[in-house]
């Protein structure tokens, strides 16, 4: 239906590389440009813009770090591991255990820096933890294990995905008056649109489901090759970028969409399964990671694709942009990490 993409550009920007021997499970840039990354060996690595990384042993005894988010203060990082621990690691490598649930894998966490609250799920249980580390809310009022958590952009509401749909909570009255969004099937992750109007889930059956909160309208996006393990939002014009196909699939929510509008196919031509996406913080660009380790930066609404990393066998498991959008980090499931400096490349 579209014309073939013009010849993709290949860019070899300045980059730093690290090689670890376990899967990279999460990455985020902290204030001061430090890249925090979590890994299957349980260590948290803090990579400053200059100088060697600091290694913090947040999850020990063979446990893996499974989930990572920049913490409420923006200067430390929050990780969950399969040692049942939720750990805060500060930029100097000091660790503090915020929660420990033996025998549980802590793989679902969310942070709102606006409200200063962390949320963590284990089984049906969700707990809210404040800046000081105190548990300020707890509920197990979910029909099954919570598979994803997302705060809205104001940090006032929390969405929890599970089998059969999503439960929405108000932080101020957590555990009371849940709003249930129902749709049959197993929902494996949740994302809240930046304007707060829409909650989207990824489903076991390789589809997306969504609810427009203003009028209760459902939406369903089909046609994915695999489960959608990664999705991210461009704020303006509000567009959802998703992995799970052989190009980045975009859904434009502005201008009456996405219902009745065709999907935007971004970054065609590489022809590999997209395993991770990350929208640029302030330009209409999306970084795409592929199942052979390739990384490209693509225009949301154009044909241009800039290839940054060739395939090396591992699949891209996580991508992160620096706050100012000048640096991009990519990690693979076999432990390769590439940190690209794009400050001089006008893509």
């Amino acid at each position, binding site marked *: 239906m579209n014309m073939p993409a013009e010849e993709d550009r290949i860019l070899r920007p300045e980059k730093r590389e690290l090689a670890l021997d376990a899967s990279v499970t999460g990455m985020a840039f902290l204030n001061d440009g430090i890249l925090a990354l979590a890994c299957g060996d349980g260590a948290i690595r803090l990579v400053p813009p200059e100088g060697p990384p600091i290694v913090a042993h947040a999850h020990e005894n063979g446990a893996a770090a499974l989930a990572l988010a920049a913490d409420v203060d923006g200067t430390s990082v929050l990780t969950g591991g399969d040692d049942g621990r939720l750990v805060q690691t500060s930029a100097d490598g000091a660790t503090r255990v915020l929660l420990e649930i033996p025998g549980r*894998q802590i793989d679902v966490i969310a942070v709102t820096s606006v409200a200063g609250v962390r949320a963590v799920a284990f089984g049906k249980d969700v707990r809210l933890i404040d800046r000081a580390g105190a548990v300020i809310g707890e509920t197990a009022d979910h029909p*099954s294990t919570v598979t994803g958590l997302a705060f809205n952009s104001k940090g006032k509401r929390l969405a929890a995905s599970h089998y059969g749909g999503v439960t929405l909570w108000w932080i101020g009255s957590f555990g009371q008056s849940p709003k249930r969004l129902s749709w049959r099937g197993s929902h494996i992750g949740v994302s809240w649109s930046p304007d707060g109007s829409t909650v989207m889930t990824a489903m076991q059956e390789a589809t997306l489901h969504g609810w427009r909160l203003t009028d209760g309208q459902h939406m369903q996006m089909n046609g994915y090759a695999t489960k959608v393990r990664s999705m991210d939002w461009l704020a303006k014009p509000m567009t959802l970028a998703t992995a799970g196909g052989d190009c980045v699939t975009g859904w434009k929510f502005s201008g009456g969409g996405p219902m009745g509008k065709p999907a935007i196919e971004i970054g065609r031509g590489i022809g590999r399964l997209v395993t991770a996406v990350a929208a640029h913080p302030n330009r209409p660009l999306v970084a795409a990671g592929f199942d052979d380790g390739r990384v490209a930066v693509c225009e949301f609404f154009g044909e241009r694709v800039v290839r940054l990393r060739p395939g090396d066998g591992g699949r891209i498991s996580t991508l992160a942009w620096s706050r100012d959008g000048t640096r991009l980090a990519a990690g693979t499931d076999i432990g390769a990490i590439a940190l690209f400096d794009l400050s001089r490349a006008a893509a």
Partner: protein
Amino acid sequence: MPETPQIPVTVLTGYLGAGKTTLLNRVLTATHGKRYAVIVNEFGEIGIDNELVVNADEEVFEMNNGCICCTVRGDLIRIIGNLLKRKGRFDGILIETTGLADPAPVAQTFFVDDEVRERAKLDSIVTVVDAKNLMARLDDTHEAAEQIAFADTILLNKTDLVASDELARVEARIRAINPTAVLHRTERCTLPIDAVMGRRAFDLDRILEIEPNFLGEDDHQHDDAITSVALKEVREIDINKFNAWIGSLLRTRGQDILRSKGILNVKGSPDRFIFQAVHMLIEGDDGKRWEAGEARDSKLVFIGRGLDEAELRHGFETCIAA
């Protein structure tokens, strides 16, 4: 991309008190030099502090894939995905189910989810039964018979608590339900770990040893009881005809056919074709090469409710190569 071998997964079923926890503890403590992850449903029961033990909630989900009996363990998809992120390889994963659990959703998880299937493979289903209480359980519940029907390996445990003639009666009752499983008589689940872990190839090959007439008629069966049918064919099989027949059979009768397994002598192939199914979900593979001078018999075994042997035999005969 380097091919990573799939991690073998063992599913452990059995009634409360049959000895599952004893077996789990043996897997975790025996000096076998292997690295096994164990997924349990009651974390407290394992009296061992071991970071390879993960707690699961046994959440059974229906799949929206049009397959009416297709239920999976949603929690397992996540837990196994997470285990695979750990540094280093596992030699196996052992999944314990609760006493009353139907083993099918666990087994089906390894057929249905692409990510799990890529990295892990159902190796075998192990059922622990209590020699002293099994007869009573078979009479008052249907789960006990289903757990035996699904099994690739059965541990007839607590044999020290019953007399030998009683043991023979229990064993005959088990064999009437499942003639193909490997049966071990045990006390306190004492047996080598490799008798339960990493069994697949060996156990499937056992099907060749089963003679159809061995199954015989059982005099106290009623209509809804679980029975088995074994079929043998000496002529070569047309694999396309077979796939069409077994696919259609399991689509229509897969709710009642709990398990089916087979080894086929496929026309034009020097290798055995091995297949196994859990309800409607089928998995096929090339197996060992036929050896020179070996009788190339095809064997099929069905375990389920209300099986019509004549109909199954007739269906299988339509798969004979021209």
